[in-house]
């Protein structure tokens, strides 16, 4: 069949156009469908709200403010409980929410990774914990101004016996779980519609799950294993009994939170799961996609690699935050985060990339958006510290003088100033530098190569063969002082390791930097395949050095005492600390512990990192807290007019 060239072209063209039109029409009808479902859903929501308002009107209660909370009588009870001397909870001194705050608006902030699911107990990455702090509430929370104090959250009253082993906790009444944001157009979800009250059952369920060996709650397992029994006393009261008095029972009990037992013991259709299977299925329970809590914000939606959206909870029992909606944009490249801030796609950046801090703030000319007032910034503590750990099980670093020499040869202050642009505080021990436990009288070990050389000479490390490297005879063998520093592969680490290596070479030590990724690094540490490594610990306000420093932790698989620190006095202090509840006494013990660690130098403590937060000035009342989550947005508000 003869066909002209032009006709063929025309045919192809027509086909393409038809295909495109088909795709568009399919997409359009799909979208229309989705919208109809959504409209249906919001109609359903509306109906339920109306019903509730009507029923409340009928029962003669005015529809005002505190809809979810209890009536006046229980409020009085809560107020009285706060003044009860037996109550472990103290009145809050932190007034988070400003009275003149502008209501409404959307806060767009950043998280740097995709959440791995929203099961509050098994998932404890920083990002998910941050989201949890908005969506859920604990029994108590730490006072932001005075983190040693616990203030009321879901519980209004906590009593403990004199031995510090029995905690009796009374929960507020009339607090309801959020309704999970499932697709209600599907009738199988009907059973989830009705809001349910938080009960002591839910509270106990948290501990049961945390203690169950089948639940992958690695982060809290060790803390809850000393619990002896759990009792539900009545609908809103429960009791946690510990086998013996341990200090961490205090925050483990009080900072815990309820988990919805009615949800986790049922499958998607609402059928009961057999009791033996509940802990196993807990890890992968379907509801982790629709997390619920009792907090000031409702979990709205999560688009993978897109964003996590929270909306304000109108039935929240506490003071309601001004901002209506929070979007956590998931952005993996820090540079992209900064670009989005500049192009107004983000309001708040929790951590400005270090090179940007240097170019825009430190060296930024008058044109810099941080100088012109286009953006604001502040430097806050990241609540962590970095260190170099010495494997004390290796003959090389078994000698305390050698480790001390290594710290003397480590030009820490200069590295902080020149490599990380001053975004760090020199660390002398394992505690947060502003925590009372950090002994302020301890002077940082100065950078002093001569002193280091002297210490090495004294320890028997002398360069006898003149090749520039020190030697020592260990077990009849002549060993050179060469070792490998297993380092975390990051540009900053690479730069400072080079500086350190040069300084060590000057005193006759050859160090090789081996830069590896995190999974490999973990493996090497688990196998104890290292001479020394670069590490970092996140800090907590409650100090329990057991995990990292007790000698028993040096030889268990995956233990955290990787350097093999074994010190009898330290062990004794750590054990005493575990049963000491008095803050004064604790501070004394912790300071003594700090001194021991300082003398022994199992780590060369390096620095506590600081981060630069940056935000658009349309955010008002941007205050930061002393403890995590430091950048909680509850007090903030958005003032569009105030630009």
């Amino acid at each position, binding site marked *: 069949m003869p066909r002209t060239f032009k006709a063929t072209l025309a045919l192809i063209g027509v086909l393409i156009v038809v295909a495109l039109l088909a795709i568009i029409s399919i997409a359009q009808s799909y979208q229309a469908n989705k919208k109809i479902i959504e409209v249906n859903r919001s109609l359903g929501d509306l109906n339920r709200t109306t019903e509730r308002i009507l029923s409340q009107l009928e029962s003669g209660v005015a529809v005002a403010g505190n809809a979810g909370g209890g009536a006046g009588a229980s409020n009085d009870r809560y107020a009285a409980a706060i003044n009860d001397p037996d109550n472990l909870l103290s009145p809050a001194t932190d007034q988070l929410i400003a009275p003149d705050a502008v209501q409404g608006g959307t806060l767009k902030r950043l998280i740097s990774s995709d959440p791995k699911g929203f099961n509050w107990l098994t998932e404890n990455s920083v990002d998910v914990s941050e989201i949890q702090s908005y969506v859920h509430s604990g029994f108590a929370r730490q006072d932001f101004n005075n983190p040693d104090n616990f203030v009321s959250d879901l519980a209004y009253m906590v009593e403990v016996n004199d031995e510090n082993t029995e905690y009796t906790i009374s929960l507020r009444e009339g607090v309801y779980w959020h309704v999970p944001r499932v697709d209600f157009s599907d009738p199988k979800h009907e059973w989830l519609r009705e809001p349910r009250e938080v009960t002591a059952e839910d509270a106990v369920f948290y501990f049961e799950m945390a203690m169950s060996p089948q639940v992958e709650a690695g982060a809290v397992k060790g803390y809850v294993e000393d619990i002896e029994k759990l009792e539900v006393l009545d609908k809103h009261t429960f009791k946690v009994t510990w086998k013996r008095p341990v200090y961490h029972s205090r925050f483990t009990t009080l900072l815990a939170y309820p988990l919805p037992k009615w949800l986790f013991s049922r499958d998607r259709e609402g059928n009961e799961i057999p009791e033996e*299977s509940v802990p196993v299925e807990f890890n992968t329970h379907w509801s982790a996609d629709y997390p619920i809590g009792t907090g000031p914000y409702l979990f709205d939606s999560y688009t*993978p690699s897109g964003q996590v959206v929270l909306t304000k909870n109108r039935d929240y029992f506490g003071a309601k935050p001004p901002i209506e909606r929070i979007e956590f944009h998931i952005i993996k490249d820090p540079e992209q985060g900064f670009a989005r801030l500049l192009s107004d796609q983000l309001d708040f950046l929790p951590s400005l990339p270090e090179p940007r801090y240097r170019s825009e703030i430190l060296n930024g000319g008058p044109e810099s958006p941080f100088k012109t007032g286009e953006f604001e910034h502040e430097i806050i503590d990241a609540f962590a510290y970095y260190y170099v750990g010495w494997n004390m099980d290796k003959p090389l670093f078994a000698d305390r003088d050698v480790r001390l020499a290594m710290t003397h040869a480590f030009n820490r202050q200069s590295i902080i100033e020149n490599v990380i642009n001053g975004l760090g505080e020199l660390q002398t021990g394992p505690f947060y530098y502003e925590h009372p436990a950090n002994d302020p009288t301890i002077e940082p070990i100065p950078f002093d190569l001569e002193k280091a050389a002297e210490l090495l000479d004294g320890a028997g490390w002398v360069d006898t063969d003149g090749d520039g490297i020190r030697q020592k005879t260990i077990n009849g063998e002549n060993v050179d002082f060469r070792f490998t520093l297993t380092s975390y592969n990051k540009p900053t680490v690479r730069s400072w390791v080079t500086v350190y290596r040069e300084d060590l070479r000057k005193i006759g030590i050859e160090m090789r930097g081996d830069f590896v990724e995190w999974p490999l690094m973990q493996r090497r540490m688990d196998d104890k395949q290292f001479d020394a490594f670069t590490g970092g610990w996140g800090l907590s306000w409650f100090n329990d050095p057991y995990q990292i420093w007790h000698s028993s932790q*040096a030889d268990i698989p995956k233990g955290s005492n990787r350097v093999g620190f074994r010190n009898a006095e330290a062990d004794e202090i750590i054990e005493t600390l575990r049963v000491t509840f008095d803050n004064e006494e604790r501070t004394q013990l912790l300071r003594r512990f700090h001194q021991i660690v300082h003398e022994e130098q199992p780590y060369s403590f390096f620095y506590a990192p600081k981060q630069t937060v940056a935000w658009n000035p349309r955010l008002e009342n941007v205050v930061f807290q002393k403890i995590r989550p430091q950048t909680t947005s509850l007090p903030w508000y958005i003032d569009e007019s105030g630009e």
Partner: protein
Amino acid sequence: MFTYILKRVLLMIPTFAIISLIIFLVLNLAPGDPAAAANPDGTETVSQDARESYRIFKEQFNLDKPILLNTRYGLTIEDVEEPLRVVADFQRPVCAEGAPVTPECTPADERPMSADIIAAQEEVENYGNYAVPHLIALAQNHERLDIRRLAVQRLAINAQRPQVDRFNPDPSDELRESNRAIAAENNQLRSWSIPQDVTPEDVDTILEEKWLPWFNANIERFEYSAADKVGIFFFDTRFAKYWENLLTLNFGVSTVDRRPVFDTVMQKLPYTMTLSFFSILIAYLISVPLGIWSAYNQNTKRDQVVTIALFVLYSLPSFFTAVLLIQFFAVGRPFSWFPAGGFISNNSENMAVLEQMGSIAWHILLPLICLTYGSLAALSRYARTGLLDVIRADYIRTARAKGLAESMVVLKHAVRNGMIPILTLLGTLLPTLVSGSIVIEFIFNIPGIGLYLYESIYMYDYNAIMACLLMSTVLTLIGLLLSDISYALVDPRITFD
């Protein structure tokens, strides 16, 4: 032709198997383990004794199994005793200096290193069920009490069975029931452990009352026939388990978020496919005419300028251009015409379809530029040589001699024949449709396959990496086949018969 295609398709199967074996081996032999969490800033939180969780994790993802071949059915009692002895030696107090060496203490110089203990514990743990008969025997008969005690403690862990098909989102009733039974049995076995300070009688009691009756009742689990042994040898391994899933098109579950990898890949595919499709389309739309034009103006100044310009573009790394483009056109230095990244605007759910398409186009223009310009040079060179090959052919001269218009000569006669090689190249581009670009997706924060692969590699998420790579493999194989077939279709001179 048909036999040819059939042969090729059949050949693809062993090729695919071998490729998957190679990828699997490289992944599994690489040092390091799948990590449960990323650690971007290099700080850890103190996590409390996650030992049991770690064991379950290993078990779920078959990481406790040998990689290729399993000989654990032939474990001897010595294999199991050895690691127990290491742990027991470590747990004994060290002999006081000068005091005589007694069985109650370990001489100081024989005390195992902590790395050895960790390895020993891991070893017994990985033996799983296979060690159970030997642990029973050790608990009954060993001359050292501490080893008997350890054997009982190990039994309480090793005798447990893993849950079957645990991540199945929609388990059948039988599966539910069998898992419930396993969970119930595990709970029981776990409780039959004993504390550190026990007498020989305690060990005897728990053995008599609990372990021996249980062991005898379930003895068939631990007796392996010759057929069982062959089965275990080949099939109770990481690789076999992986393939078992693969045969049912199941790519397994991500070690990171415990979701089926296949779902995640499907969800990310549209982003990558949109980008790659338009990138290939635009690359062809620009480079084919450009190549023809170059060939037509062969060796003139204009041709040289275009060639040099294309090669300059070719040598600019795309991550560099990407950052520059964002700087110039997205963040207001000097322009903010385009968004700095992402695939679609946030409020897209409220947009009409055309608006959505507009929003996507606006978002992906910059990434598209970065993805496309690099391939222009190669493609236009192909087009240019393709045309040069035919432009001096006799039939072109004939066409001109017939008095056809020059445009007709070039477009109809020369181009149609000269473009054969460039058409067949299309087949080989198929895999790029799904593999995406790691760098561009990272810089522009586009949630596609490239970014997913990048993250998975950092987390050692074996199943996810395998899924991404195997998809590319399949498409490469298909693409090669298609391009071979298209040769025959386009050019009648080529046949496969």
